[in-house]
């Protein structure tokens, strides 16, 4: 499991070392940030949660046991729990913050292309808000956790085949939402 994702090999004696933290952060930041972004609509909360997840990871690094699970499985387990806790504290009243985020701008594009791409990405995130919590979690785990359908099934407690069904239906729905808004997917970056 998780064989297709990059894994870090940790020197247990270097676990309290800032250089080790930096290595982990550089390797996993994008995935963790996007994972949170896909599950939480409020951009400020995305930043807060991402930093809290890494803090939790770094302070708990001494407990990681490679023989029990791949590092990314451990990391995303921490992230999942943190987000569950976030929604529990908020009483499950989620709201969509539809602010434009500079983080969602494609790099390496001309300014006009970049703007189109950024708008497209914003449309995708808006469309994500129309999905249920479970659907968003499955998509987030698939895209950014590096989880196979079997891994997702194990951590979410639903069957592997059902995971595939939910994933397919959710992605289909995302596409339908975008098309209903008159958005041509082929305009993206």
């Amino acid at each position, binding site marked *: 499991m998780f064989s297709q994702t990059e894994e870090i090999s940790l020197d247990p004696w270097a676990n309290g070392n800032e250089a080790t933290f930096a290595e982990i952060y550089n390797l996993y930041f994008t995935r963790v940030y996007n994972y949170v972004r896909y599950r939480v609509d409020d951009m400020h909360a995305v930043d807060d949660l991402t*930093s809290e997840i890494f803090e939790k990871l770094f302070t708990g690094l001494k407990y990681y046991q490679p023989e029990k699970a791949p590092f990314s499985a451990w990391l995303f387990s921490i992230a999942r729990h943190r987000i569950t806790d976030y929604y529990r504290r908020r009483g499950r009243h989620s709201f969509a913050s539809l602010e434009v985020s500079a983080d969602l701008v494609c*790099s390496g594009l001309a300014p006009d292309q970049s703007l189109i791409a950024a708008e497209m990405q914003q449309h995708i995130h808006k469309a994500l808000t129309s999905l249920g919590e479970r659907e968003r979690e499955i998509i987030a785990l698939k895209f950014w956790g590096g989880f196979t359908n079997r891994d997702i099934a194990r951590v979410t407690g639903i069957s592997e085949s059902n995971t595939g069904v939910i994933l397919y239906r959710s992605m289909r729905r995302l596409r339908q939402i975008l098309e209903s808004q008159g958005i041509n997917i082929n305009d993206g970056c």
Partner: protein
Amino acid sequence: MDVSKRDKFIANLDQIIFGTVDIGPIEDQEIASMLQMVRMMVAAGSNINSQTKEALWKRIMDQMPRQGVHSLPIRMQSSQSDELDDEDLEYVAAGMPRSLPGEACPVCGSTNMSSKGKCPFCKS
């Protein structure tokens, strides 16, 4: 639902997510369009502003003491919280539930037995 269509999409989705650039021609227009959306989502996520990354790194490091990182207490939450404490972090591995103290799999010896007495490793 067309199962073969779904399976084809899932297989191609895995390829794109795990980095296959060219997955070949897709005849079904709906699947092709969905996969294009997948590419866009992956590309968008891969281009996070580096300033955000740096700012969050600085914030994290500011929160961590210069010395004795290991001795930092992990903030305890209320009993309703799903936040992990120190002890739970020892057990958290891909969502596996904790076993009761002293409970081990009679087949492989794993101490990660589920609450239903099932071993996640040897499945006994």
